[in-house]
């Protein structure tokens, strides 16, 4: 079948999307979930393993208490109830990168359940219900060698790295997300983005999407507009950036709508998201025959976090994102519209960090939503992937505040920074961007402007000081912008005696 899709507007005119998200978060504990092996990313293959995480005969798991603590914190931050007593369960299936051929996970007794969180899209608040957050272990990582695509089809052999096997994961599962159809994909993106901020604030995960420490699966189905007839859902895996969440869901909506309109049936299947081509392709067909034969993990004792401990952890939680946003908006004096732009632009955290470095709120917003947002958009990346961070923004703004740069020059400095031309000082040096602060050349330029514009001088002298603006413009032009306009005005006024 070809990848026929509808336009998103057409799809949404006929169908209401129903979504659910499953987000896997790798915790940043020092050791793995059930053994003492280190968890650092990027070590040579199979150097961070032991009998336990290799699933050697006889080895037994022991629960990492820090992993449980992180799970509880995440649960609390998502307004979940925390189980008084819960167990791990074995999820049984065979796969070469799974050392025991079962994954130690949780089944019907998750550590956290029945929660909610709120996200803001276009100034509107949406509530996302959280089904559960449970603890589990990661699998190893397979590399397929010898094929053209790096995928298992066509590969001559596969290599397995068990360094990742046993790294603690928290799986966060939302309940069905039903929002106005046109907002669905954006809400999903906002949820994942906000979840990332939350996890960073909790300090439980590094949330490096490029390293796979936050992985999102999106379940999507369609129902004819205004009905309650549930459609068949697909589960799109490998959605590993905020932007992809939005794009992948949009794609699935348009694809499923096209299939349905052509009289076809949606297969219940796993689909793979392709970042480069922006489409999903069919993976494994899922059926009701998938049976993981869950049962309580007999090698582990139940987890029974005391209420005292849970309350201690609750007391350590950082401010809830929605409350924090409201507080920041007041502190910064932003309008609702301005705040919406900040949130939609995923610029909240960089702006916070920039302000912490001494920059005013309006200046921080100006750069992050201006030059930097534009550059990120052009490259199709998130703000934090740019080579310019809060430190550079603060450095440039400091030069503006000192009068070394004006906004126009500052923009050129950012251009240089984004092009990798070095530090702000180096860019200014190379591009010759500093303001002329010496009075001599400025006065010469002013004299040239007065000489060239006798009619303007005439007007000023005849009691219209506002006309002097034209002279300032001429001076700035003469100085190729590398002058402080205020300074020019001051010198000009002195010269004209106004």
């Amino acid at each position, binding site marked *: 079948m070809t990848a026929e899709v509808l336009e998103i507007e057409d799809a949404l005119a006929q169908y209401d999307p129903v979504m659910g998200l499953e987000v896997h978060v790798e915790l940043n504990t020092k050791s793995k979930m059930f053994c003492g092996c280190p968890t650092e990313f990027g070590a040579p293959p199979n150097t961070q393993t032991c009998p336990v995480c290799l*699933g050697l005969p006889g080895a037994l798991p022991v629960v990492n208490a820090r992993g449980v603590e992180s799970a509880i914190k995440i649960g609390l931050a998502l307004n979940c109830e925390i189980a008084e007593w819960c167990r791990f369960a074995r999820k*049984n299936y065979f796969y070469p990168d799974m050392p*025991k*051929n*079962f994954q130690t996970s949780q089944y019907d007794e998750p550590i956290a359940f029945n929660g909610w969180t709120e996200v803001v899209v276009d100034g509107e608040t949406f509530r996302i219900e959280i089904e559960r957050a449970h603890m589990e272990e990661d699998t190893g990582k397979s590399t397929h060698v010898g094929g053209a695509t790096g995928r298992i089809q066509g590969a001559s052999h*596969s290599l397995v790295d068990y360094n990742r096997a046993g790294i603690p994961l928290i799986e966060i599962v939302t309940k069905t997300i039903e929002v106005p159809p046109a907002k669905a994909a954006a809400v999903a993106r906002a949820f994942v983005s906000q979840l990332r901020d939350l996890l960073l604030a909790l300090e439980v995960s590094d949330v490096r999407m490029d390293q796979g420490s936050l992985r999102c699966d999106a379940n999507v189905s369609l129902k004819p507009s205004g009905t309650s007839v549930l459609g068949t859902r697909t589960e799109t895996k490998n959605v590993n950036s905020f932007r992809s969440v939005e794009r992948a869901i949009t794609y699935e909506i348009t694809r499923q709508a096209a299939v349905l309109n052509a009289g076809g049936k949606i297969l219940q299947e796993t689909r793979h998201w392709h970042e480069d081509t922006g489409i999903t392709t069919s993976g494994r067909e899922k059926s009701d025959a998938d049976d993981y*034969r869950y*049962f309580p993990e007999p090698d582990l004792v139940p987890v029974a976090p005391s209420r005292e401990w849970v309350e201690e952890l609750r007391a350590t939680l950082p401010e809830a994102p929605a409350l924090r946003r409201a507080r920041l908006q007041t502190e910064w004096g932003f309008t609702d519209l301005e705040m919406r732009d900040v949130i939609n632009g995923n610029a909240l955290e960089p702006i916070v960090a920039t302000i912490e470095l001494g920059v005013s709120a309006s200046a921080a917003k100006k750069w992050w939503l201006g030059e930097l947002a534009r550059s990120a958009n052009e490259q199709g990346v998130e703000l934090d992937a740019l080579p310019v961070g809060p430190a550079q923004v603060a450095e440039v703004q400091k030069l503006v505040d000192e009068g070394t740069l004006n906004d126009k020059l500052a923009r050129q400095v950012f251009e240089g920074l984004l092009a990798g031309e070095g530090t702000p000082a180096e860019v200014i040096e190379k591009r010759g961007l500093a303001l002329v602060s010496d009075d001599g050349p400025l006065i010469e330029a002013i004299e040239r402007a007065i000489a060239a514009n006798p009619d303007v001088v005439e007007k000023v002298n005849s009691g219209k000081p506002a006309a002097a603006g034209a002279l300032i413009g001429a001076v700035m032009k003469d100085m190729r912008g590398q002058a402080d306009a205020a300074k020019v005005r001051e010198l000009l006024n002195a010269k004209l005696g106004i």
Partner: protein
Amino acid sequence: MSDLTRKTAAELAELMAAKQASSVEVTQAHLDRIGAVDGAVRAFLHVDTEGALAQAAAVDAKRAAGEELGPLAGVPLALKDVLTQEGVPTTAGSKVLEGWKPPYDSTVVKRLKAAGIVILGKTNMDEFAMGSSTENSAYGTTHNPWDLARIPGGSGGGSSAAISAYEAPLAIGTDTGGSIRQPGAFTGTVGVKPTYGGTSRYGLIALASSLDTPGPCARTTLDAALLHEAIAGWDPMDSTSINQDVPPVVAAARNGDVAGLRIGVVKELGGEGYQPGVEARFHEAVELLTKLGAEVVEVSCPHFEYALPAYYLILPSEASSNLAKFDAMRYGLRVGDDGTNSAETVMSLSREAGFGAEVKRRIMLGTHALSSGYYDAYYGQAQKVRTLIARDFAKAYEQVDVLVSPATPTTAFAIGDRINDPIAMYKNDLCTIPSNLAGNAAASFPCGLADEDGLPVGFHVMAPVMRDDLLYTVGAALESALAEQWGGVLMTKAPELEVTR
């Protein structure tokens, strides 16, 4: 010095402590005995001659240097092949692990080594401990030293046969449904299943995680207690191990005073299906204990009759998952890896070739019992029965200190007799299984020979969780009273094995 093999572990320890024998001499004597009789008994799958002698020499050197040594230092031991020992082949009786050398020591082995106990080698067992006769071993059947045409019990038949054949004074077994106690009963030796969690499972190749318990095998009650003390105690590597002091098992074995002890005879474990000679010896033993001052009453445990079916749902369910790791990807047998087959096919071919019939039977049973739609009816129900059995025990222990029964319904049967009748084979464990399901302590002690066949009968004692000491109290009392009648422990009545080397 061949008489060294006739001595108990306690006697050998004393001799060595008095420097009247070295560990190397004691070890060599047992290695010689293995060489002489194991061709007929076939208790060992692997004899680690060099490793054992090196360990013995190390103990001797420490003793010569005046270092403080444990009470069993220098005494040799036979290790069931289900526990990992670094660098020593470990198969769990299965082809699927042929040639595998573990890179790590199980906790039991670590503690044995720390105690200076010399590990002679690995003993035969039913594949992955699934069986009651060793006939399910992929490496042949072990023969009962009392009658070589009979099975020694299972799954730990190799360990019990080894001590019964004087190839070792001590052995380690593991008990999931009776795999220490039933072979103990069949070979006229002592077999103790400690409280679940009282001994560490780390490094024990799992059959059923919620049931498996390592424990001691010996020819005397005191020897078993000394070994019990050496291996027991909390292990942070095993989440299910109990963080409490080891019960005073050695003191109990030395004392053996049952005066005032309340003993409950389990009504449901006897009668139809039990061999008359077994029942006769059992009741005589109960009378003997009464004479020694114990208060004996009959106790009913009504749910014990459901123990066997519940066990055969829980065990295969856990086993089906535990045995999934044997997939040829990382270790063990690999079949079909010729470059044309997928990993999935290689897994399938390797498991097909590597597992025996009983293992496959239980994997299929367990996979079915855990399947969606069947889980509640099978695994779920079995767990409920398990709770009911634990309640039966709890109620009984309100009335009495220990419970007793025959260890097995019959004496050792002939090789080949029941191998094609799984249900008949499973019924061997009728008396032993309830203690595994409840996780409490239990043991089998020799109580005589059945009249019909002249084969050993086991006296089964069950005690509450972490009251393992009570087992030894009863065992020691029985042992000393019977020794007066017999002029020694029951083993002295065993026929001499022909030296075949």
